[in-house]
């Protein structure tokens, strides 16, 4: 039995990224001493305020879509990898190999767009690293109060693992050309 090992590894990694992402976000922003926290991820995005967390229903729906997409694409990649010579294998591969890459691209673009939109209000949120964040005067109602805090942001392990998975998925697609097909 011929196996596409790159695809098999990519399929397993896709499911591992999915599992880890339930516990560790792809990108995290912390303001102050855990005063406000954003855990961003296509799998589970939530917000924390002084130890309590909440989510946005619309984001939750998108997260559920991502969870299902990761699950299905991971499983289909595994099925393809075990039967890469079947006549329907290319359809399975074409469906599954793009999904982690799409997730990474859409996540990064969404993050940059949201940060740019927030930046229009005067709040300069870092994508990576730390920077002082000062609440714009229009948000302090002009009552002689200024509020600032250190904001620290970073991409975490699942994000890098998702990039690795995306690369492996592309390698699996390229390797598929070397596998003689049954007609």
């Amino acid at each position, binding site marked *: 039995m011929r196996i596409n090992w790159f695809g098999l590894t990519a399929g397993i990694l896709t499911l591992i990224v999915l599992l880890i992402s339930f516990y560790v976000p792809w990108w995290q922003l912390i*303001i*102050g*001493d*855990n*005063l406000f926290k954003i855990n961003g991820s296509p799998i589970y995005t939530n917000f924390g*305020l*002084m*130890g*309590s*967390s*909440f*989510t*946005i*229903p*619309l984001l*939750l*729906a*998108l997260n*559920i*879509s991502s969870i*299902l*997409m990761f699950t*299905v694409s991971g499983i*289909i990649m595994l099925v393809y990898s075990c039967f890469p010579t079947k*006549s*329907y294998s290319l*359809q*399975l591969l074409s*469906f599954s190999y793009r999904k982690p890459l799409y997730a990474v691209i859409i996540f990064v673009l969404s993050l940059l767009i949201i940060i740019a939109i927030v930046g229009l209000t005067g709040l300069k949120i870092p994508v990576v690293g730390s920077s002082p964040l000062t609440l714009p005067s229009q948000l302090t109602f002009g*009552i*002689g*109060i*200024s*509020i*600032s*805090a*250190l904001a620290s942001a970073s991409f975490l392990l699942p994000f890098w693992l998702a990039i690795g998975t995306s690369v492996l998925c592309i390698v699996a697609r390229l390797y598929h050309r070397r596998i003689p097909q049954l007609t």
Partner: protein
Amino acid sequence: MDKVKIALTILTIAIMVGPLVCVTLLYRDNLLGLVIPPELTNLASNDDTSNDTSLAYDINPPTPAGDPQYFPENKSYTFAYNFTNPFTDSISVDAFSAAIYSKEGVFLGNASLTNPMQIGPGENGIVDISGSLTEEAISYFKNSYSGSNINTVDVTLRNIDIDAAGLQVHLDQLPPDMIGSIPLPIGDLK
């Protein structure tokens, strides 16, 4: 093999659209709730009647803990405030500094946090603040109140800098409805 392709396309559409349709139907009576969760609405409106209380913090301003004390030997004074941490995380109060002014706007001295402190979730913490009076302040009290039977003078804080929970807050002056004025004892100053 078109059947496989069609099945995968339908699956993709179902996965993308299904959750969005479900959540929209759940919030069809309150579409704003799709992007503004009830926890945030409660927090903004300070609604205690809602069942969802995960973010409905009962934030109360600090209250005076005991009477302010004045120590004539070193011209210093202390006053304390009681603060209850309403959050589910500890709060660190790392720094506090302010200038003390009389109601007439005379600068009397500076005040600062005696020791950095940590207040656990739901716990009460006593924030001790101390400072010393300037020579001008002592002269002011002697000139203004000697011979009178007034033993405390209400003073107020300005240029307040607070460093708590990693947040740096600067207030030009203390909002009157927050703490109000501090009754500084001047019995030994007259």
